[in-house]
């Protein structure tokens, strides 16, 4: 049952991701991406990472996808189907990516990991504790980066008079 669910989610994630990179209509790409991210949230839930699954839905689908759709609508005319959306390197990129995928698969297949018998489920309480004790410095740096990105976005996006 669990396995069937995993294959279902994995297949849908790959399919939606493929749609997101190949669809001709850029607005459809954003919607495919939202579905792919939702599938990845399902993968997080299967890995018992509840908090991360919720964050994925909130931040990615609620925030970033909305931003993408705004950007697509602000740069009008680009969701026109008559405009070519891919460059001339499609064939060579497909070959290169397939080779990369084969190497990655071989690497995964040939390496062995010291997997412990019991699962390591990390609860929400532990995440909060860990964020504010062991990883408090990177946590604060993240807020600095977000502030910098916000200020930078306003400065770059401002219309100069």
């Amino acid at each position, binding site marked *: 049952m669990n396995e069937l669910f995993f294959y279902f989610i994995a297949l849908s994630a790959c399919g939606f991701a493929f749609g997101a990179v190949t669809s001709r209509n850029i607005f459809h790409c*954003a919607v495919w991406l939202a579905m792919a991210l939702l599938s990845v949230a399902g*993968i997080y839930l299967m890995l018992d*990472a509840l908090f*991360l699954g919720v964050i994925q839905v909130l931040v990615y689908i609620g925030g970033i996808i909305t931003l993408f759709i705004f950007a697509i609508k*602000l740069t009008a005319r*680009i969701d026109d189907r008559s405009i070519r959306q891919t460059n001339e390197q499609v064939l060579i990129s497909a070959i290169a990516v397939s080779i990369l995928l084969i190497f990655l698969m071989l690497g995964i297949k040939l390496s062995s990991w010291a997997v412990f018998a019991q699962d390591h489920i990390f609860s929400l309480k532990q995440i909060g504790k860990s964020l504010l004790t062991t990883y408090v410095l990177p946590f604060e740096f993240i807020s600095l980066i977000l502030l910098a990105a916000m200020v930078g976005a306003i400065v770059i996006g401002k219309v100069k008079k």
Partner: protein
Amino acid sequence: MISLNHYMFLSAILFCIGVFGVLTRRNAIGILISIELILNAANINLVAFQRYLGTPDGLGQIFALFVVAIAAAGSVVGLVLVIAIYRNGKNIFVDNFNLMKW
């Protein structure tokens, strides 16, 4: 039983789809969409390692959280850059972005 390898294979496939998108898209927003896919593939790996190998203090999940935050910041700046370039040139196809070239 689903093993660690299953998740790593899924992550590898998603990563390769993302790389394919980055290489072939003409549209700058399409490239940003592909980058989000790549970051998600990396995140799946991190969480799977956390679950199966048990990193200290939940390093895998915490790191994945940081990746989400950085991805949000990155895509905000990227999209604003796209809009600023569009405002100047009425075009967001990367093969026409040569204003930094001389």
